[in-house]
């Protein structure tokens, strides 16, 4: 590699040559895009430099512009008229937020993270990102830089937010996968699991940000394509939420040096993985959390002294995206030889594109430079003036005096042709599982199995490796109960110590339901995230959502059809619940191809919904562990026979066809009334019914609180006459909760919940016995909380 700049001969190239260039240079551009670039340069009567072509490829990458979500989609569903959708994002996500129109949404979809109001002085920012491809190749580095990147998103929002909370959700292959069954070139799920957790741990802990919420899911289809979602919540002063760039402002880079790490990350993540991807080590960045901590320390001081006007992080595409985005409306001039390098020998395009970590770019009025430099020196952070913003509306990059990029900003940002894509969907037909009532009279073993299944089993060994107490604000911890080891529905933090104003963060994710219908999977993810918020004392009224889609290759009509189904659900359910999206992201092309056999694997369609809620008074928060013997246990919300994609079917080897439906006309009043009952201190503990249904929820509440339960299935409100105990125990219908109520509040609580289906299932007992009686009055489940807890704690213990 040399310092030379090369030209790409594209203006006279034929289609085959254009595609060869796109593939050989990992540009991930299709023919139409290459032709658009060709036309542009043909008019200029010159060929692009390598720096220019790379800049366009980064800016137009799926990762940076989300072209699938903006493309025109021709969608067909069996038996229905073909539909034309002009962009999934504007049609289903953005429109939902606009129609819901919450006054407390400060900034949505425009900045590096969404912003909502918190109190009189501060707003909150929230962003969730994925770092899937890097984590597949190098789990530790990939996950660490994933969390590092999303922290910089918060820091790059407005004029910079102070990071106050991390949330992480991982999807891995099954931990017991035999080595022989590993797809070629992939790492064992256990190795990925360990590496990812260590990466998030070491980065988050060093940054001093509590990691207090998350989830870990397992499915064999994640083996070659693990998913790593990293989220960050930040606190930002109300008067620091806007940014602008003025011509003449200096372009200042702050933070780490630039090396050859992470080159082509943006375009790499816009392609499928195959069995040779492990050789692409250089696309994974190298993280240094202490560098990032120094940047945060320096920038927050500079922010409070008003020393810069705009800020963004160097993420995908490095300086090329950061400067390109900041200067979109003005113009920018950059001198690459000024960039501090880790080592010599980088070509100009490598300097420009490198995704070396821990770098931010700020726009500094020249009068403020000296004061900024003083702060940065005191905090020991390297700071360099790279150039200035101009009024030329051109992106001009120089290297040792010669022009290496001279691009029209409008072409760069608006020149990308809209894609037209085909999408189809047809319902799957899975084998249905009959009730096992005629085979067994006892479901105790089933409950053990469910509690021990890796998706449900305790994640304590992971959670404890994260510092979830730093900053002193976490008031509902990820682990709760009499022994501090029960699974909390959500975490609650008070970012200002001494203030009772709190923030709740929760998530919902149900990839198993997408085997039945991605619409139901997406709808259920939203319902689950909201249930978790409500279960600790939050309200729908003050909740905002984030959507993170991880999908297979959207160029394949069936994958895209599933995406359309999910996006439709996002619109329908969010508008019905009145909970707006404030930010989101997608990671597509999560597929693996074995180049020798040609075998193709896609991940299950996976939508993560993250929810954030502002809670006025932390005193009202509750946890899921039962509090006292003699208290009553109610189920809130109606149970339907909905076991398609359920964990109960899963442990018996079935998928089924009736995944849980979300019925906001029932779910919304249920959640609203329950929120108000909790606010009125009528509820001692509350747990949402999700994986494993009522049985698992009840068991978790009981063993977390250290008391037994005696329950009866007869009083469960159901949709129809259900005669099967197993369906009642394990159905995963949405919008349901188990709550604990003191006997003296029985009437008040029941009156409070008028018009919402509730049923008293039994009581908390002063024993360790956990007993459930079935519809006929016979005991169908009998064990002790110690046995249940042990089943739940053992599988992922170390």
């Amino acid at each position: 590699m040399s310092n030379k700049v090369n030209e790409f001969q594209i203006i006279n190239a034929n289609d085959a040559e254009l595609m060869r260039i796109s593939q050989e240079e990992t540009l991930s551009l299709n023919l139409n895009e290459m032709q658009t670039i060709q036309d542009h340069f043909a008019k200029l009567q010159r060929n692009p430099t390598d720096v220019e072509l790379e800049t366009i490829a980064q800016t137009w990458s799926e990762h940076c512009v989300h072209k699938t979500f903006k493309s025109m989609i021709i969608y067909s569903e069996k038996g229905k008229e073909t539909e034309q959708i002009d962009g999934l994002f504007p049609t289903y996500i953005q429109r939902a937020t606009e129609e819901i129109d919450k006054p407390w949404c400060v900034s949505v979809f425009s900045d590096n993270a969404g912003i909502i109001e918190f109190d009189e002085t501060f707003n909150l920012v929230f962003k969730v990102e994925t770092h899937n491809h890097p984590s597949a190749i190098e789990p530790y580095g990939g996950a660490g830089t994933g969390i590092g990147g999303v922290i910089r998103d918060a820091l790059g929002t407005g004029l910079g937010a102070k990071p106050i909370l991390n949330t992480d959700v991982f999807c891995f292959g099954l931990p017991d996968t035999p080595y022989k069954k590993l797809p070629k070139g992939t790492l064992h799920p256990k190795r990925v699991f360990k590496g990812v957790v260590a990466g998030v741990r070491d980065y988050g802990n060093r940054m001093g940000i509590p990691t207090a919420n998350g989830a870990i899911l397992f499915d064999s289809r994640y083996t070659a394509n693990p998913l790593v979602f990293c989220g960050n919540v930040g606190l930002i002063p109300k008067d620091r939420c806007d940014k602008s760039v003025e011509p003449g402002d200096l372009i200042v880079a702050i933070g780490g040096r630039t090396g050859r790490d992470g080159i082509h990350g943006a375009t790499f993540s816009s392609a499928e993985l195959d069995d040779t991807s492990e050789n692409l080590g250089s696309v994974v960045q190298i993280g240094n959390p202490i560098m990032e901590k120094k940047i945060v320390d320096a920038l927050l001081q500079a922010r409070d002294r008003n020393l810069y006007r705009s800020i963004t992080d160097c993420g995908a595409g490095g300086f090329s995206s950061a400067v390109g985005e900041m200067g979109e409306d003005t113009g920018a001039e950059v001198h690459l030889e000024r960039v501090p390098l880790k080592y010599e020998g980088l070509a100009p395009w490598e300097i420009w594109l490198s995704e070396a970590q821990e770098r931010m770019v700020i726009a500094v009025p020249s009068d403020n430079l000296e004061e900024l430099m003083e702060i940065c020196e005191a905090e020991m952070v390297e700071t360099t003036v790279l150039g200035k913003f101009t009024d030329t509306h051109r992106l001009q990059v120089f290297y040792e005096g010669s022009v290496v990029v001279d691009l029209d900003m409008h072409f760069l940002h608006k020149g990308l042709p809209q894609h037209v894509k085909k999408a189809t969907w047809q319902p799957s037909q899975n084998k249905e599982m009959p009730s096992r009532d005629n085979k067994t009279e006892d479901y105790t073993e089933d409950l053990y199995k469910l509690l021990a299944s890796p998706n449900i089993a305790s994640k304590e060994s992971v959670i404890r490796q994260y510092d979830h107490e730093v900053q002193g604000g976490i008031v509902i911890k990820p682990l709760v109960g009499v022994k501090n080891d029960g699974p909390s529905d959500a975490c609650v933090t008070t970012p200002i110590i001494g203030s009772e104003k709190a923030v709740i963060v929760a998530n919902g994710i149900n990839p198993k339901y997408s085997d039945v219908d991605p619409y139901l999977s997406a709808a259920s993810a939203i319902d689950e995230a909201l249930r978790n918020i409500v279960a600790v004392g939050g309200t729908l009224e003050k909740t905002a959502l984030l959507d993170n889609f991880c999908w297979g290759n959207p160029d394949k009509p069936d994958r895209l059809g599933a995406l359309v189904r999910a996006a439709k659900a996002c619109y329908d359910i969010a508008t019905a619940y009145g909970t707006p999206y404030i930010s989101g992201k997608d990671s597509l092309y999560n597929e693996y191809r074995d180049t020798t056999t040609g075998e193709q694997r896609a991940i299950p369609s996976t939508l993560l919904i993250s929810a954030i809620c502002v809670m006025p008074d932390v005193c009202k928060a509750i946890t899921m562990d039962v509090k006292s013997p003699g208290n009553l246990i109610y189920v809130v919300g109606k149970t339907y026979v909905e076991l398609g994609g359920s964990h109960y079917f899963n442990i018996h080897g079935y998928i089924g066809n009736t995944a849980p439906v979300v019925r906001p006309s029932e779910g919304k009043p249920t959640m609203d009334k329950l929120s108000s009952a909790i606010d009125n201190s009528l509820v001692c503990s509350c747990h949402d019914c999700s994986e494993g249904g009522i049985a698992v929820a009840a068991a978790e509440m009981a063993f977390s609180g250290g008391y037994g339960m005696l329950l009866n299935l007869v009083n469960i409100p159901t949709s129809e006459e259900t005669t099967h105990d197993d369906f009642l125990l394990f159905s995963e219908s949405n919008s349901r909760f188990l709550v604990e109520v003191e006997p003296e509040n029985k009437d008040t609580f029941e009156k409070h919940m008028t018009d919402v289906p509730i049923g008293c299932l039994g009581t908390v007992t002063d024993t360790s016995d956990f007993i459930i009686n079935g519809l006929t009055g016979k005991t169908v489940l009998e064990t002790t909380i110690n046995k249940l807890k042990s089943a739940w704690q053992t599988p992922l213990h170390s």
Partner: protein
Amino acid sequence: MKPKVLILRTAGTNCDAETDVAFQLAGAETDLVHIQNLISTKTNLSDYQILAIPGGFSYGDDIAAGILLAVEMKHKLKKALHQFVDDKKLIIGICNGFQVLVRTGLLPGTELNPQNDNEETAQSTTLAMNTSAKFECRWVELVTQQSPCIFTKGIKQHLYLPVAHAEGRFTAPPNVLTELETNNQIVLRYGNGTKLSTEKTAYPHNPNGSDADIAGICDITGRIFGLMPHPERFLTKWNHPRWTREELPDEGDGLAIFKNAVNYAITNLK
């Protein structure tokens, strides 16, 4: 007048903000000061009555926890630190700060090392990798010991505080441990409500495998205190992991430690 607390910061310090709040709640005036400003004498340590070294990962804990900051303090702030100690002022090191104090030799203190040339304080104890071989965050029970420690004077016998560290296993040669016992320099031990006092506390109650269940020690004067648990993370009852199920006082167990320091400074230091 309010006593002044210097909360020392450097690259990787990350418990400074809550330590700051803790001292303010205890009635002190506080400054967060980067070590560069002390080295350049832009800020003078002598203007303060209390020095707090908060938790975090100073310089990434490269080589070992706290070592680089300790070296920097020993070499670049030697005079100012000696003066501070000679002036009978207070020093507290929490978590990474405790690791730093141990590596500077300020804890357990020079008197334990007569072979010392007096010029340089030497290290006689260490905080090693947890026996669980990983970072762990959990709440622990602590038993306050008879000691001259200013920070724990009159404090209740059983404290409940969180730990969050990978390198917190206090260990020392047997003679040093005996000396610590004899001098009453052991301030806090990990405890377990049900165990007999002569028994060693088992994991996870002793979360890191520390010798003699040691969670915190002081120098022989009681003015320098280091501990692995985080008192600044338990200032109000909302910090307690079981506030939703137990009756608790509004004030957290940790605050008393800061109040003791501030009250001592008000009476004895200027």
